[in-house]
């Protein structure tokens, strides 16, 4: 059943009269492929319009003529091709169809090549004298390879024709609010704004204060939040080294100064205890 279906599909697709799609046919006229130009190059007027559209330009027409003659692209009979090309142009002009300027330019080029080839070859002046056809052959070859590439691309399996993206319905999705990203620079810019407004720069103390001290103040406070009194020594972590001890000491002094903790010593030389002034 596959073959049947497939052929029905391609048949349905092929039914669309689109000249550009015809591979062997020169053009489609009233749905029927026009396989070859009549030998005498007489083309009925209605066919001519379609015929004009069947070619992508003078290079395309030349390629067609070359292939129809079974010529090798590298060995074009310029006289013959030029004759046929000119006839084609004449017919089109006789029918008063608008002809793209490129076709006329090509006609001139062909005429020039033909005339150059008729000239006797200069005897051993520059031995590297190029075949006057070379440039034309180069252009024809170049165009032909991209014409072929276009056909290849058209053959690639593509979405909406040969394959379709698969998708399935969504189940109920949990809603989650993602967190925005913040760059430190953003935060510092914001801070700069505040500082300008608050004119905190004038505060000598703020400038000098080490942030680690403030960080430690927070740490001590949160350590004190649970219990009523903690021994002063417990705030220190000897493993931190001298610098850590100094930071803790400074933080404690600052906390005392800001009246955030109170320090109690029951007797002279007795153990010192600290606690938060306001416990949760």
């Amino acid at each position, binding site marked *: 059943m596959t073959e*049947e279906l497939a052929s029905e599909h391609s048949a349905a697709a092929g039914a669309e009269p689109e000249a550009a799609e015809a591979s062997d046919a020169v053009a489609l006229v009233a749905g029927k492929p026009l396989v070859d130009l009549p030998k005498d190059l007489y083309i009925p007027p209605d066919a001519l319009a379609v015929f004009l559209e069947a070619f992508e330009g003078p290079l395309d027409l030349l390629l067609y003529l070359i292939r129809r003659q079974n010529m090798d692209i590298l060995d074009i009979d310029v006289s013959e091709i030029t004759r046929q090309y000119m006839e084609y142009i004449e017919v089109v002009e006789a029918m008063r169809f608008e002809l793209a300027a490129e076709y006329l330019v090509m006609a001139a080029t062909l005429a020039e090549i033909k005339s150059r080839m008729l000239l006797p070859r200069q005897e051993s002046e520059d031995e590297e004298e190029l075949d006057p056809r070379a440039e034309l052959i180069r252009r024809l070859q170049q165009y032909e390879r991209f014409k072929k590439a276009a056909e290849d691309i058209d053959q690639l399996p593509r979405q909406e024709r040969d394959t379709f993206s698969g998708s399935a319905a969504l189940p109920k999705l949990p809603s989650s609010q993602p967190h925005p990203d913040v760059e430190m620079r953003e935060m510092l810019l914001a801070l700069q704004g505040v500082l300008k407004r608050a004119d905190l720069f004038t505060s000598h103390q703020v400038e000098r204060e080490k942030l680690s001290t403030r960080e430690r103040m927070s740490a001590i406070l949160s350590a004190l939040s649970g219990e009523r009194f903690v021994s002063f020594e417990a705030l220190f972590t000897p493993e931190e080294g001298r610098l850590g001890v100094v930071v803790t000491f400074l933080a404690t002094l600052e906390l005392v100064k800001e009246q955030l903790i109170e320090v109690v010593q029951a007797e002279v030389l007795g153990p010192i205890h600290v606690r938060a002034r306001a416990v949760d």
Partner: protein
Amino acid sequence: MTEEIIQRLQAIVEAALLAAGKPLSMDQLVALFPENDRPTRQALEHALARLEEACEGRGFELRRVASGYRLQVREEYAPWVARLFEEKPQRYTRALLETLALIAYRQPITRGEIEEIRGVTVSSNIVRTLMEREWVRVVGHRDVPGRPAMYATTRQFLDYFNLRSLDQLPPLSEVRDLEDIGREIERNMQGEIQFDAAAGDAPDQAANEPGAGTAEPDPTLH
């Protein structure tokens, strides 16, 4: 009906349901086939039943809904799938960033103190957002009327900004010069990396040391 035909019907139905991405009715499924080569409804139902089985253990399943059949992502994978559709997170407001910066630099600090510096009220929303993100926590209460909470930054805050300690933030005096901020941070981090490399295998303790970020103890401090 041969096994092969059923297998084929099942694949066609699956292909069509995935291409449609929405429910297809039995009529629509029948219409996939040209008139001269239509399977019976019974055959299609058989193929659908087979498809249902074939989806076991996979990321999607066949559902029968009012308008027909549809393939649907399994509910158990919703948490992962949902992340595909997460909206781009909005940006934080300037007010929030200012509040965060003030808590970082002036901790422990109360909301009232932040408001005093910023000159405007700090909305509860901002504080809640910062707490929910676990960048800020309450470390105590100030012993004044109302006993306002005092806020400080957290370990998570440091982690997020790749800081070992708050000392790695540029000092306030340098925040003044915008152009230098980026360079300063970079230099600090560079120093950190070099420090780490030099330290080799004495990591944890150094990492916990609050002053580790600064190579030389600041003489003005003492």
